[in-house]
């Protein structure tokens, strides 16, 4: 609190990002949030912004109406305030600068967030996802794969989890030797086991081969992986980097596997760019789609130049290659990049999702993230800039993974139990630092922070809200008939994910949502079914003659579940009452509150659709004023009136 100089500023204007509209209200600054409350009493819109979500604050030069403050968020929200007095603006600005740069983990919101659960509930939340059970589900340990305790004390690899699965023929000396030959000690371990063909997906970091170095233990290790699969005589080694990057790494004593030294490997580059390229690409993309009065041409050219969809496709291509090698050829695959925690995580996770319908369910998707991202040490703290340590470490690697999954949901609308809102919600919380799951860079660090004792688990929270994330057209029988997804890689399947990158730009969204509507119908179907069942039981109980039907029959209105209007296609919905009960759940609260005005919007509009938001032309600006310009000469008049 000591950083807050001005807790409240009145008469602040909030400008719309894409139109000339603005609303006036009061700005509040709290220890955790920046809150804007619109002063108009009828449609008092509220915007809550968590400090951790703020990526940057910019003070623009003074204008006649005040001092503009531009706030850019990691969830792609962009707000533009105009604060009447420069001093207030400066106070807010400097307070925010301090608040959004926490100096230690203890300052993160997760450590003060309290959803009013007792210790037991919290513990249960953390126990929901159990990776040992997950490996058991895959059929591991088995006659070829075993659990090793070599990393019990994080001695072999600091960034790996304690429990690791390796081929039974890989002895401790081999493991230790191999780990010494791999960047950051990340030796090859099992991440997914395809039971049907006994083929394994393993992951590691790049070998320290330089121009000629060898390591017999590492060669043994790969041999052991190969031997563990009787279905195939060879294993694939996928280097997910572009070949040029891998070559350059050789000069630094790192590099890639020499096919001459390893027996029976098939080596393959797949060309996913590094974190810096991805960061730049997203920046370009956001610049383009943030432009006002963007023309179709500039949009498409900008989309192409950003390269974003090209990168998304590269990740997808790699995952498809992995899935094919495993499911069609029955070969085991070893995946790595440089350190084995970015591109490797993307490809392994997405590949597994293609191969295993379980990962396309809500619970399964949580398990997948827990396994391939959290436990194997994707550096969430660095990539998502939790502590503002190094801007060069920040990169939207996990966002890309979520987007790849979204692209798949577009191609296979029936294959996923969850809707895109689930993905967007996970993205929201990866950056919110509200739950402990994504804090820190590795499992070891998370243990040091005692997250399980001091914070809550996101997964419990999401499972509580499960009904909001369901995909109404999900079909378990589709999963049975299509256990392995074979997506098309035709370029036209790769689309811009508007609901992610324009999540908060209401004017851009479809004004009515199929998803939401169908969910409502399904809910209502379920409820009606329940009523029928209840009536049947009653009838049986009382015999058919009695008529206790009256109090039981629900009025028709009840059958249609009230669903508050919402910002996004089928966004999670909380009624106002619930919001008040759970004061601290601001991210939801924020949604629900912001939604309220949408439903009370103008009479002429449908779900907040209005002419002013759309900006059919600059010409419209002149409509407000009744003063027509005097008669002008034709030649000029034509040019001027056409604007």
């Amino acid at each position, binding site marked *: 609190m000591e950083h807050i100089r001005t807790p409240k500023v009145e008469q602040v204007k909030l400008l719309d990002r894409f139109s000339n509209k603005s609303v006036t209200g009061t700005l509040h600054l709290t220890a955790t949030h920046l809150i804007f409350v619109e002063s108009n009493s009828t449609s008092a819109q509220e915007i809550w912004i968590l400090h951790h979500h703020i990526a940057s604050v910019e003070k623009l030069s003074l204008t006649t109406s005040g001092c503009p403050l531009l706030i850019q968020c990691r969830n792609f929200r962009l707000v533009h305030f105009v604060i009447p007095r420069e001093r207030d603006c400066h106070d807010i600005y400097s307070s925010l600068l301090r608040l959004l740069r926490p100096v230690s983990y203890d300052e993160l919101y997760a450590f003060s967030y309290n959803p009013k659960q007792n210790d037991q509930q919290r513990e249960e939340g953390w126990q929901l996802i159990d990776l040992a059970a997950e490996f058991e589900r895959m059929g591991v340990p088995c006659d070829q794969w075993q659990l090793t305790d070599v990393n019990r004390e994080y001695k072999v690899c600091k960034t790996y989890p304690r429990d690791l699965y390796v081929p039974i023929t890989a002895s401790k000396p081999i493991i230790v030797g191999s780990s010494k030959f791999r960047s950051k000690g990340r030796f090859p371990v099992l991440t997914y086991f395809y039971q049907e063909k006994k083929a394994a997906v393993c992951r590691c970091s790049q070998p320290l081969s330089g121009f000629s170095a060898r390591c017999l233990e590492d060669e043994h290790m790969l041999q052991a992986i190969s031997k563990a699969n009787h279905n195939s005589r060879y294993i694939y080694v996928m280097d997910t980097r572009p070949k040029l990057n891998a070559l350059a790494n050789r000069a630094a004593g790192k590099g890639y596997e020499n096919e001459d030294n390893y027996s029976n490997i098939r080596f393959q580059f797949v060309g996913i760019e590094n974190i810096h390229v991805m960061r730049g690409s997203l920046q370009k993309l956001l610049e383009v789609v943030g432009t006002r009065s*963007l*023309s*179709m*041409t*500039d*949009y*498409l*050219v900008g*989309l*192409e130049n950003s390269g974003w*969809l090209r990168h998304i*496709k590269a990740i997808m291509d790699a995952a498809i290659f992995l899935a094919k090698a495993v499911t069609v050829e029955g070969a085991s695959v070893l995946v790595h990049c440089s350190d084995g925690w970015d591109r490797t995580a993307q490809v392994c996770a997405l590949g597994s999702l293609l191969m295993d319908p379980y990962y396309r369910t809500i619970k399964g998707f949580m398990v997948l993230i827990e396994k391939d991202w959290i436990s194997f040490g994707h550096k969430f703290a660095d990539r998502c800039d939790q502590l503002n340590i190094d801007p060069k470490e920040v990169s939207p690697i996990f966002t890309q993974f979520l987007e790849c999954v979204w692209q798949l949901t577009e*191609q*296979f*609308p*029936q294959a996923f139990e969850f809707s895109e809102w689930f993905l967007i919600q996970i993205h929201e919380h990866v950056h919110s630092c509200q739950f402990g799951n994504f804090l820190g860079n590795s499992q070891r660090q998370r243990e040091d922070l005692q997250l399980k004792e001091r914070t809550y688990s996101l997964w419990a929270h999401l499972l509580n809200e499960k009904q909001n994330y369901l995909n*109404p*057209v999900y079909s378990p029988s*589709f999963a049975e008939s299509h256990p392995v997804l074979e997506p*098309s*890689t*035709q*370029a*036209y*399947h*790769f*689309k811009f994910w508007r609901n992610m990158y324009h999540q908060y730009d209401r*004017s*851009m969204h479809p*004004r*009515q949502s*199929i998803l939401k*509507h*169908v969910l409502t*119908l399904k809910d*209502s179907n379920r409820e009606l*079914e329940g009523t029928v069942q209840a009536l049947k039981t009653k009838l049986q109980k009382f015999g058919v003659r009695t008529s206790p039907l009256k109090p039981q029959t629900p009025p028709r209105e009840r059958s249609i579940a009230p669903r508050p209007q919402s910002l996004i296609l089928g966004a999670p919905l909380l009624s106002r009452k619930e919001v008040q009960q759970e004061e601290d759940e601001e991210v939801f609260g924020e949604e629900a509150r912001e939604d309220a005005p949408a439903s009370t919007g103008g009479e*002429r*509009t*449908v779900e907040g*659709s*209005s*002419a002013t*938001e*759309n*900006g*059919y*032309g600059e*010409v*419209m600006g002149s*409509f407000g004023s009744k003063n*027509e310009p005097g*008669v*002008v000469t*034709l*030649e000029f008049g*034509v*040019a001027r*009136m*056409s604007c």
Partner: protein
Amino acid sequence: MELSEHIKTANVEDVTLRRPFHPALRGTLCVTSHHLLFSNRKDEASWQLLILLKNIDAIEKSVENLFGYPRAVGSSGTITIKCKDLLVLQLEIPGMEECLNIASSIEALSSLESVTEMYPFFYRPSHLTLLGPWGLSTTEQYYKQTERLWDRWRVSKVNSDYSVCPSYPSAVIVPREVDDDKLIRSARFRQGGRFPVLSYCHHSNGMVIMRSSQPLTGANKKRCKEDELLLQAVIDGSELGYIIDLRSAQQAQQARMTGGGFESKSCYRHWKRIHRHHERGKVVQESLIKLVEACSDLSHSVDRWLSKLENSKWLSHVHSALSTAGLVVECVERDGHSVLVHGSEGTDNTLLVSSLAQIILDPASRTVTGFLCLLEREWIQAGHPFQQRCAHSAYSHARLKQECPSFLLLLDCVWQVWRQFPLALEFSEALLLRLAQEVYASNYGTFLCNNEQERCAAGVKENTHCLFQSMLKPDIEEQYLNPLYEPTDLAIWPSVHPQSLQLWTGMFLRWTEYAQNMEEAREEVWSIVKEHRERV
């Protein structure tokens, strides 16, 4: 020349048919005067493919005659058939001569010029009858049903013999106080005689959308008193009306050099002119060609795809059509002013904008019947030259004459509106797709000819069936219904941010593997809705 004289080989056995994402089939190929028929008989199961020859946009043939082999074994040919509904088929025909014969028959019979030789004049299904009125409605009926028009508007028969305006229907709706003589004079002052007529009267405030062609002001700024009076009568004493000119200001200026022009501020005092540039004719046709080419590029490169998509400019046309329609709606609904829409000829973009504006404004035009009535009124009767515009589609190698996919553009825009308001339209994408197909090749007479006058001369109404009537038969209409339909009386303003507009995959990628999954998901939605209806 009889049609059958074009057919040298009517039947070929052992033909192999290849379609995208289907296994190859062997069967018999037949050419008739209007159809290509492929049938594959295997034991009891038989499968047939019937294609209207008119649907064929382009054919490519390649023959090979392997030297030294007897003719029956060695020579064969392949015909690639590219249809106007974007389907591409391959036929492998044994025998070089047969192959060439079939190809030349298709070429001749798919490009018939004479309207009365076309298939709708021969289509006689048993469930339809040629008796009874043709079409859904007439101008008079529309007027009678629309009570809000009675006060200030009347039906004029000035064009009953099509002499005032050859491309207008015999009856039009005009301001009550303007007599037929004034209309005739105004018509002389407008290109093609297309004087300002009523297109739509808004139910909530009585403001109207008018449409016309450009005024013939010419280089020396001619005026026409009657035309000015006609427009004055439209706004009837209110202070302002808007003229939405679908050309840039510069183009409108240039049009004066060729006898056209625009309404000058000094002559039309109460009208404010707004220029919005719209591409037309050849440019739009070329966009379609490039878009379809981009969609069939199998190179898998995202950059290439985006650059081709951009280069086609198709989505830019969709964008400008929707934004201008939005602008018209803002004038009428938000500002409460009447609007006159025109470009040059007033037969393409003008109709596109005025009908889109009605979809946005008027709940009545969002039902199946209402939408088809709108199309009949604003496209068929209003004289969109379908025969010229839809002579060829995206694959044809023929030199472009007057082709322009204005109607397809309309369907695309309506699809975009449906994407943004999936509950507001009573009809589904299936209806739009059916129309996109019928407009290029049809069993019905609805889209024949260029205007009412030609349809009368050819006897279309007496000798063909009406597509819209057949689509409204209850058992058929059902397949075009939107399961989620919930009528709303409000205007549905679409967002026109480029990020909100999308490629119409259902149309342009309809023959790809993509369609299958979407279809299944759609059926799932249907079944949920049905279950809900049954339960409630």
